[in-house]
């Protein structure tokens, strides 16, 4: 979190110098439908960028355009200074891409498949075996090298997909929904793997799961109906998600009127037996006051938690509407 404007400016300068991916005013139409509408951003070296949005927001289309699988209707993508339209070969050499559906050949063994991807990325025959065994080790595939891809579990197939994307040690790794369809343990393993990738590569990943972005990314883009709504750090996102409401649980709840009379409290909703939602003015957080009164009045306060907006609510907030949970919140 950099509050100092000078530091921000310095960071900006550094950004422009070491940006690996530059996306400028990208548009893509499918017939009359505008899937991606004026999206621009940059990604720096060593950054993990999360592309967040609901299904159908245009995340995959954006990633397909960055990886050169789709040509944009308008706009420019450059990877490490190479333009994807005019120098696709040089640009793609810097890039590893895992689409939503991993591009695997089920009839191949893991070793065969990885050797093939390595050869496609012009790794010399002499370094082939070393590259394959290194990437297998990184992705935890060493034990399944001789198995057919068709016989692997979804989690292992996803790892093979990631291995394929990083086998030529590209500068940029693009992962489209890398954890979709996996069980919680596999998700954790893949997240750890992505976190490890960040030490050597810049990573862009797309997801519709907010905690995923919070867990592994250091910057987030929110995209909705093809438009880029937010380009912020994770800390910035967290700030936006703070709603000005508290949920309180009492064993011996006081009168609603008593709570309403506390300084800064604007409204009190009775939820369940003993559950209360309390909206307050953003400048006056009444937490201290409530604690004091609860102790003095023997209300049996057993839970006090600040409410966070859900991703959906953040969307609504960012698109200009008002979040359902905080009707009094300043827009």
């Amino acid at each position, binding site marked *: 979190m950099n509050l100092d404007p000078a530091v921000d400016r310095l960071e900006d300068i550094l950004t422009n110098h070491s940006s690996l991916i530059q996306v400028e005013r990208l548009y893509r139409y499918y017939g009359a439908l505008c899937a991606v509408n004026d999206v621009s951003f940059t990604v720096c070296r060593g950054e993990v960028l999360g592309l967040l949005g609901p299904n159908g927001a245009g995340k995959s289309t954006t990633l397909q355009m960055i990886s050169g*699988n789709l040509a944009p209707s308008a706009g420019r993508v450059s990877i490490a200074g190479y333009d994807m339209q005019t120098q696709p070969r040089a640009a793609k050499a810097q890039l590893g891409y895992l689409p939503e559906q991993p591009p695997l050949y089920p009839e191949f063994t893991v070793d065969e498949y990885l050797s093939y991807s390595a*050869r496609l990325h012009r790794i010399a025959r002499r370094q082939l075996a070393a590259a394959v065994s290194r990437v297998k080790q990184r992705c935890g595939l060493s034990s399944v090298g001789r198995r057919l891809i068709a016989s692997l579990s979804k989690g292992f197939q996803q790892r093979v997909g990631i291995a394929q994307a990083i086998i030529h040690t590209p500068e940029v790794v693009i992962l489209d929904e890398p954890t979709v369809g996996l069980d919680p343990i596999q998700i954790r393993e893949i997240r750890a793997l992505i976190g490890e990738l960040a030490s050597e590569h810049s990573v862009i990943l797309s997801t519709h799961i907010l905690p995923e972005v919070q867990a592994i990314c250091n910057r987030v883009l929110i995209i909705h109906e093809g438009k880029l709504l937010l380009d912020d750090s994770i800390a910035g996102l967290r700030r936006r998600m703070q709603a000005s409401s508290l949920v309180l649980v009492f064993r011996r709840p006081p009168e609603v009127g008593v709570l309403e009379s506390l300084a800064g409290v604007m409204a009190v909703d009775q939820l369940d037996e003993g559950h209360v939602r309390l909206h307050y003015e953003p400048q006056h957080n009444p937490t201290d006051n409530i604690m004091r009164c609860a102790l003095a009045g023997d209300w049996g306060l057993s839970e006090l938690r600040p409410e966070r907006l859900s991703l959906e609510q953040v969307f609504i907030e960012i698109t200009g509407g008002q979040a359902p949970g905080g009707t009094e919140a300043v827009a």
Partner: protein
Amino acid sequence: MIAVIAGRELRSLFLSPLAWSILAVVQVILAYLYLSQIDFFLQLQPRLAGMTEAPGITAMIVAPLFGNAAVVLLLVVPLLTMRLVSEERRNQTLSLLFSAPLSMTEIILGKFTGLMIFLLLQLLLISLMPLALLAGGTLDFGVLATAVLGLFLLLGSFAALGLFMSSLTAQPVVAAVGGFGLLLLLWIIDWAGSGRDSTTASLFGYLSLVRHYEPLLRGVCSSMDIIYFLLFMTTFLVLAIQRLDAGRLPS
């Protein structure tokens, strides 16, 4: 790079039972036709012995064998080409090729080369049959050579057209049906012109695959025919490259 993609195609072909069963079925059918042709020749032989300028063993056996092989492979090659692009499109594995530093030309030529290596193997197996005649007689090697060249060029044309059809669709079966239909049409297109005015006849005759293949079976190696086949292959390969590239572009 072309070799890498060709190697992958060949490997995938032989990892599935399709390649083996096609090699076997084609060989069995052609062997049957070949044996019945030998039988026919042996029946005629006493009469042929009395004729001056009688057709030799090459004209009597090799030419019909390669003629039959062309028809059988016209049915079979679309089955081999159908999956080349459309299956990758359907399984969404094309992005592996698209995100690698490759040009569309390399992708198409790689797939074409892989299939041609397989078809060369098939051609070798077919050519072994007439070579077996050497055990009991002599062959006109010039005619055999042009027949092999002719079948090679013809298979290249089948493969190029099939590859283009495969690049059009995500449904392998549609690609096979389309490829087979178009090949058959180009095979029999000269029927339309026959008996009519000469310009139509010569135009349709020129387009027909069979009109350019037959002279090669008789041992007539004309540069016109060879250029026709080369043009045919180039046209459909270029169309396939264009089509693959067009898939990325906005509609």
